[in-house]
C-alpha cells in the first residue's frame, strides 16, 4: 500500500505519487489484515465446526456404519452452520465505526468492494473449513473415496454460502439483535447448496461421476458472484441510510 513510485513527469519531479491499490485489492488486504490482528475470530468458526460434528456421534449413535452413512450430510450441515455463525460479524464492526458509511460514500464501485469483502470472509472461514473437513470425515468414518468429493464440493459450495449469507448480514447490520434473524433469513436460501453439496459427497462415496453435482454447484456460485454483490450493495445502502 505504501510503495511509492517516482513521478515520471519532469515538471514536478519532486512530487511523489503514492500508488494506491484499486478498490478490490485495497478492501481485500484491509479485511485480511484486520482479521489477522484479531485471530480469535478466525478460529471460533472452526472450533464450532468441530464441536457440532462431535455432537452427532454422542447424540445419535457412535456406530461406524451409521456414521459413515450420515457423514456427508453432517459435515455439510456443520460447515453451513459454522459459516452462518461467522456471518453476523461481517459488516458489524465497519458499521459501528463508520467505515461502512465511508465505503458507501466513496466513488469506488461498491460491487467490487463488496465482492472483496465476501472473498476475504470466505478465505477466513470457508477455506479453512474446507481444509479441516477431511479431519471430520475421518472422525465420522467417511469412506476414503468420499474425501475428494467432500473437499471439492465444499470448495465450490462455501463461497456461495458466504455470498448468500452476506445478503442477510447486510440486511440486518443496522439492527441490534441481528444474530437469530440472519439465520431465519438465510437458512432457506442455503437449502439448494446443501442439497447438491451433500449429494456430491454421497455420489463420491457410491462411486458415481461427480461432474454433474460440481457443475451445478459451480453454476450456483457463478450466479451468486454476479447477482449477490448487487443485492448486498443495495441492502447495505438501505441499512446505513435507515
Amino acid at each position, binding site marked *: 500500500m505504501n510503495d511509492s513510485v517516482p513521478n515520471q513527469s519532469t515538471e514536478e519531479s519532486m512530487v511523489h505519487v503514492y500508488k494506491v491499490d484499486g478498490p478490490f485489492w485495497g478492501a481485500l488486504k484491509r479485511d485480511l489484515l484486520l482479521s489477522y490482528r484479531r485471530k480469535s475470530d478466525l478460529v471460533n468458526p472452526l472450533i464450532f465446526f468441530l464441536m457440532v460434528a462431535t455432537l452427532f456421534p454422542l447424540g445419535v449413535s457412535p456406530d461406524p456404519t451409521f456414521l459413515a452413512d450420515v457423514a456427508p450430510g453432517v459435515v455439510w450441515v456443520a460447515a453451513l452452520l459454522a459459516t452462518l455463525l461467522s456471518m453476523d460479524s461481517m459488516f458489524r464492526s465497519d458499521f459501528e465505526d463508520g467505515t461502512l458509511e465511508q465505503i458507501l460514500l466513496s466513488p469506488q464501485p461498491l460491487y467490487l468492494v463488496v465482492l472483496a469483502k465476501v472473498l476475504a470472509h470466505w478465505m477466513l472461514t470457508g477455506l479453512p473449513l474446507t481444509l479441516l473437513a477431511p479431519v471430520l470425515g475421518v472422525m465420522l468414518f467417511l469412506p476414503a473415496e468420499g474425501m475428494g468429493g467432500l473437499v471439492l464440493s465444499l470448495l465450490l459450495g462455501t463461497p456461495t454460502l458466504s455470498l448468500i449469507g452476506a*445478503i442477510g448480514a447486510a*440486511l*440486518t447490520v*443496522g*439492527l441490534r*439483535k441481528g444474530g437469530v*434473524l440472519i439465520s*431465519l*433469513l438465510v*437458512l*432457506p*436460501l442455503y*437449502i*439448494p447448496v446443501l*442439497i*447438491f453439496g451433500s*449429494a456430491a459427497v454421497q455420489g463420491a462415496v457410491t462411486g458415481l461421476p461427480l461432474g454433474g453435482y460440481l457443475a451445478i454447484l459451480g453454476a*450456483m456460485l457463478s450466479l451468486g458472484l454476479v*447477482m449477490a454483490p448487487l*443485492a448486498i450493495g*443495495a*441492502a447495505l445502502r*438501505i*441499512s446505513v*441510510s*435507515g
Partner: protein
Amino acid sequence: MADKKWMPRWFYQLASPRWCYEITGKLLPLFVIAAILLLVTGTVWALAFAPADYQQGNSFRIIYIHVPSSILAQSCYMLMAVAGAIGLIWKMKVADMVAKCCAPIGASIAVLSLATGAIWGKPTWGSWWVWDARLTSMLILFFLYLGIIALNSAIESERTAAQSTAVLALVGLVNIPIIKYSVDWWNTLHQPATFKLTERPAMPAEMWVPLLVMVIGFYCFFAVAMMLRLRNEIIQRERRSSWVRDLIAG
C-alpha cells in the same frame, strides 16, 4: 412529465394512498360478494356433487381446498416481490404497503396448504408428513414468508423495513425456482416415485370445473383480505394527513 407518458394514468394514481383507499372502498363489496358466491358454490359442488375418485374415494375432496391454497400461496409471493420491486424502483408508498400486507396472508395460506396436504396425506400415503419434493418446497416457501415477516417486524423505520423486505423478497424470488428444482432433484435421487399420488386418468370435467371455481374464489378471497389489510395500513400510516382526520371526524 412527458417522458413518463408510457405508463398508464392509474399507475400513478395508485401511488396516492388516498386514491387507493377510495378505489378499494368501492371494489371491496364486489369482491366480497364474488368471494362468497364462488366459495359457497364451489364448496357445495365439490363436496356434494362432484364424483368421488375411483381410487381415493371421498378423501380426495380435500383437493378443492388444498390445490387453490397452494396456488395462491405461490402467487402471493410473486405479488409481494413485484410490489416490493415497484416500491424500490418508483418509491411508491402504496406498493410498500401492499408488499407488507402480502407476507402474513401468504404465510397463513401456506400453512393452510401444508395442513390440508398433511390431512390428505394420512389416508392416501399413510403418514401425516413425507419428505416429498412438493411438500418440502412449500415448507421452504413458508420459511421464506416467516423470514420476511421477522425482518419487517425487526426494523422500526417503516421505509427501511419496506426496502429491506423488498430486497429479501426479490432474492427469494430468484431462489424459488432454484429451490424448487433442487428439491425435485433431491427427492428423485433418494425416493423415486414412492410417494407419488396414485396414478389416475386426467380429471373429468365434473371434477375440475368446481376446482376452477374454488381457485377463482380463493383469489377473490385473497383480494378481500388484501384490501382490508391495505385499507387498515393506509389509515394507520396516513393518520396525520388531513383527509384521514376528516374521514375519522365523519
